């Protein structure tokens, strides 16, 4: 098993364990010494001193989702770009930089087309312009 060279990952595991340890340890330590006087008022959610109205787990605006969507597309794009970018220097040294450059350009430009589309259609605008009346209506009904 020593051939697998997995020892490099040791510190990561150790650090994750340490993080759990620090968090758990401090919480456990605190639970021994800290006061514990819960009452009903203390355990209500903060809403500027008023009684909380309803649950906070309500519907949210869909534009959060659109942002996350563009993000995940670019995330995946970067995941594909990383290895190609890593070999770019090597390819450039052996004289294949031009072809790789072209393929990177193609790849990126297609995605740029996507973001331009979203830009033009206003998906990137957080506040929609006022003459645009396509605000979500159902989501706000209840």
């Amino acid at each position, binding site marked *: 098993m020593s051939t697998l060279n997995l020892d490099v990952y040791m510190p990561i595991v150790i650090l994750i364990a340490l993080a*759990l340890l620090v968090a758990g340890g401090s919480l456990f330590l605190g639970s021994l010494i800290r006061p514990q006087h819960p009452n009903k008022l203390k355990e209500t959610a903060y809403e500027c001193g008023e009684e909380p109205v309803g649950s906070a787990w309500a519907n949210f605006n869909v534009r959060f989702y659109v942002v996350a969507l563009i993000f995940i597309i670019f995330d995946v794009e970067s995941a594909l770009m990383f290895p190609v970018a890593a070999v770019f220097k090597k390819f450039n040294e052996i004289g294949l930089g*031009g072809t790789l450059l072209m393929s990177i350009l193609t790849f990126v430009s297609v995605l740029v087309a996507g973001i331009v589309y979203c*830009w033009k259609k206003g998906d990137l605008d957080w506040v929609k312009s006022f003459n645009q009346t396509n605000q979500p209506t159902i989501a706000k009904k209840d």
Partner: protein
Amino acid sequence: MNSTVVSYFSQSNEFQNVTNWLTQILGFNASSLVAFIIFAVFSLIIVGAMATIGGLGTYAERKISADLQARIGPNRVGPFGILQFLADGVKMILKEDIVTTNADRFTFNLAPVLCLVGVFATLAVVPYSSGFMLADLNVGIFYLVGMASLVGVGVFLGGYASNSKWSMLGGMRGASQIISYEIPATLSIIAIVLLAGGLSMKTLIDGQGGAPQDWYIFHNPFAFMGFFVYFISALAETNRAPFDLPEAESELVSGYHTEYTGMKFGLFALAEYIEVFVVCGVAVALFLGGYKVPFDLGSGQILVEKLGLDGMLAQNIGQFLELGSFFTKTLLLYYVVIWVRWTLPRLRVDQLMTLCWKYLTPIALVNLIGCAVWMYAFNGKSIFALIFHAAGSAGGH
């Protein structure tokens, strides 16, 4: 494992002796065990150092803000109030732990731990010096990006679990801000990866030199812009001002950790301050020459030749110089981060999104393409190399 702590130590004879001795005693190959012990010790050291830096960060923040606002700041605990962070820590532990009735307990407890795990795991690949690196992964920077995105999940879950409207808004905003700004940051990183030709931190830093003209920030105009794009995105990713929308106290009370008290809040804060350090360290490693020291002092060769020092000793001195170099640059950036916080007003949420998607991301894409074209056109030479080459050929022969 070519440039981690263990490999650095394994250069010395004592390490071999200890390993052999342990192997004889225990009856199996103990190199892994020794490595584990060394890693554990150094992880503890780093975590300790980071906790201190995080704590000192809070102190520095208050002190610097006081300076900027012509106040004195904390001055009671210890000399110049420097032990203030210890007092804060003790206070955190002693505070009552409140979980609201409607909260999702499991998630509520998990969220700060997730943040902390994400940040601590990134510490493994931060290059402190050429010999003092916990893990030199082949995918180092990419791994860092992945682990750092755990913080977004933590923030979101923290906001969700509280079941408070302020928290929920803060959590949603925080998560979408973190993921949004990850894009320009990642694109800037890809541009540097293009220049360096590898993902491991060692490769990224070895492509640079000690002197500023060898840093990637001055490699070409696009990388120069890329540094600022990365730095702004990093600020936003760590929810620092002027991007502290998720915890905007004037509108969201305290954002996603409104309902958190005591040590759980402390964990969020610790994670945030350490993350600031990490992103500053990454900025240094990627753009500002990392741990490199001018005149190749880091490897100690010059000390051996000029001063006739022992090889191992010279190397150790070099390591400390490198550590100093890295920490100096990083802490300078850390200072800039705090400075920015108290100088610039907070952005509105729509300005935040506009800045990310309509300015930083297109600029980062242009930088990426520009770096690729530069690499292709000038065969990977930096702008200074070109200028020196041109000047040399103009002046000489």
